[in-house]
């Protein structure tokens, strides 16, 4: 029972992390109609920046803030140098160019930080378990990820739905020409949105960094998951991304936690423990396939252009 609660929380935590990644992706996708495979690279960069800056400053929080700023700047620079020339192009062109960027970022990281992964140690105040219920302990760090991600999600919702900037973003999404005619500086808006997406990806990366090893290619697997999420949720829909992310996070985590035991009842021990993670990964893609077949536009398609 405690295990189940813990795994549910882990699933929620992973789902929220995925949401941070997917939110940026779906904003950029929905608003600029731009497929950004390099989004995963920004996630990776966030993690590497965090590992580096925390090492330099000796402070986890300060390092994280610096890393966030660095990813934001990197995102804006990337948009300015390369990606803005790809708006309005074929999706295929965008896929290829950003695929090239992934290759670039992976090797750049290898050049700067070396091929071995980095570890990002947590300060002690974040490693102590917190008692949630009598007898139920949960790592403070994971709990803080949940809280931070929820706060960011709420903030994002407020910004997009309640503020002038958000209105501009939504206007840009639903009608680019009209937004342009209203005197909105679309170029600047897009750069801002892209920067925001990059910062969210960076945040996800730096928060995940202490849990996993910081390594090359870490952005790629999770990028695909993020794509699955926005496809399930409906491209351009923040709400859809949120729900789908939680869903995917839970399925993935619970699958990994409980499938081995379930499978062991049918298969041999070794076979079960290798098959389970693969099966739980597959489960997500299966889910996506079903959603696409039943509702080719995703579960919560954003308003029509």
């Amino acid at each position: 029972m405690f295990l189940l609660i813990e795994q549910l929380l882990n699933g929620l935590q992973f789902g929220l992390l995925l949401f941070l990644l997917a939110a940026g992706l779906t904003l950029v996708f929905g608003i600029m109609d731009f497929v950004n495979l390099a989004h995963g690279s920004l996630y990776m960069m966030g993690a590497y920046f965090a590992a580096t800056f925390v090492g330099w400053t000796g402070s986890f929080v300060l390092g994280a803030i610096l890393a966030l700023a660095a990813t934001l700047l990197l995102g804006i620079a990337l948009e300015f140098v390369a990606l803005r020339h790809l708006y309005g192009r074929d999706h295929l062109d965008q896929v290829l160019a950003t695929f090239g960027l992934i290759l670039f970022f992976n090797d750049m990281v290898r050049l700067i930080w070396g091929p071995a992964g980095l570890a990002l140690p947590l300060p002690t105040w974040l490693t102590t378990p917190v008692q949630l219920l009598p007898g139920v302990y949960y790592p403070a760090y994971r709990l803080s990820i949940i809280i931070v991600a929820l706060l960011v999600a709420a903030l994002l919702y407020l910004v997009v739905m309640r503020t002038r900037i958000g209105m501009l973003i939504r206007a840009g999404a639903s009608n680019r020409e009209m937004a342009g005619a209203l005197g909105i500086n679309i170029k600047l808006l897009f750069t801002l949105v892209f920067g925001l997406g990059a910062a969210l990806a960076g945040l996800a990366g730096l928060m995940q960094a202490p849990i996993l090893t910081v390594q090359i290619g870490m952005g790629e697997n999770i990028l695909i998951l993020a794509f699955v999420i926005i496809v399930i949720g409906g491209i351009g829909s923040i709400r859809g991304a949120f729900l789908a992310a939680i869903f995917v996070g839970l399925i993935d985590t619970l699958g990994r936690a409980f499938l081995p035991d379930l499978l062991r009842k049918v298969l041999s021990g070794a076979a079960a423990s290798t098959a389970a993670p693969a099966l739980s990964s597959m489960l997500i893609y299966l889910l996506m396939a079903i959603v696409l077949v039943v509702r080719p536009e995703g579960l919560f398609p954003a308003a029509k252009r």
Partner: protein
Amino acid sequence: MKFKLNASNVLVAVVCAALVLLPVYSAVTGNIFILTLFTRIVIFALAASSLNLMMGYGGMMSFGHAAYLGIGGYAVGILAAEGIGSGFIQWPVALAVSALFALVIGSLSLRTRGVYFIMITLAFAQMAYYVASALSRYGGDDGLTIYKRSTFDGLINLSDRTQFYYLCLACLFGGVYLIWRIVNSRFGLVVQGVRSNEQRMQAIGFPAYRYRLTCFVIAGTICGLAGALLANNTDFVSPAVMYWTRSGELMVMVILGGMGWLFGPLIGAIVFLVLEELLSQFTEYWALIMGPLLVLIVLFARGGIMGLLGRVRRG
């Protein structure tokens, strides 16, 4: 088709002649490395050609084409591991399984369009990747070593470098010829018509879905053959063959050469893999150059190498 003397045709003729004569050069100079490299190139050219049939002619932007490389490869590897070494069994099985996979994937994916199609093909390929990782009996994540290449009752010896190279080359030329026939056939015209304007094709009486699906299956099957060749070439097959970056590389080869050009994928595969080889000799961090190069190609050379040649011809 009449042969016209223009830059692209001359290039193709020269490249094909060079490919045929390559083993001679290799034997004379003792440069075995180049033969190994080009065996790989020829195999990838076949895979990319099949993707070109789907993307360039059928307008279906599959981001999961590497799955068939893996499926073809695993068919060979698994049968070999189970003691069935005959290529007469291995290869037809590789083709059949690839075709079946393509049929299932295609029938689901083709219900979607655009980016959704790109993503769903990607997702299915990832599924195949995870299935392969789960095959603990056959190496799981670490992959499966193939101790003996496919045998063909003494007709051809795949362990002989030159013979294997020529077999791959024959498969490539055969594949390209087949694609050429298909493209100009009734079926091929319909597929290209659907790419151009699906609504119109429906209105004049073509059920687009069936044609697309058939094209999808043909392309997957041809790529399955490339997978069988690749597994024999490396004596090894692993889930990594199906990883999505591999699908991306296949796409790059097609675009680099020129999508919808019969020989585009061959040229694209040569350029991509030779470049990769040269850059990695020059620096360990070859992707630092290759990555931005890709961006530049997309930005400034959309038609690929064929597009550039066309410009030269006109200019």
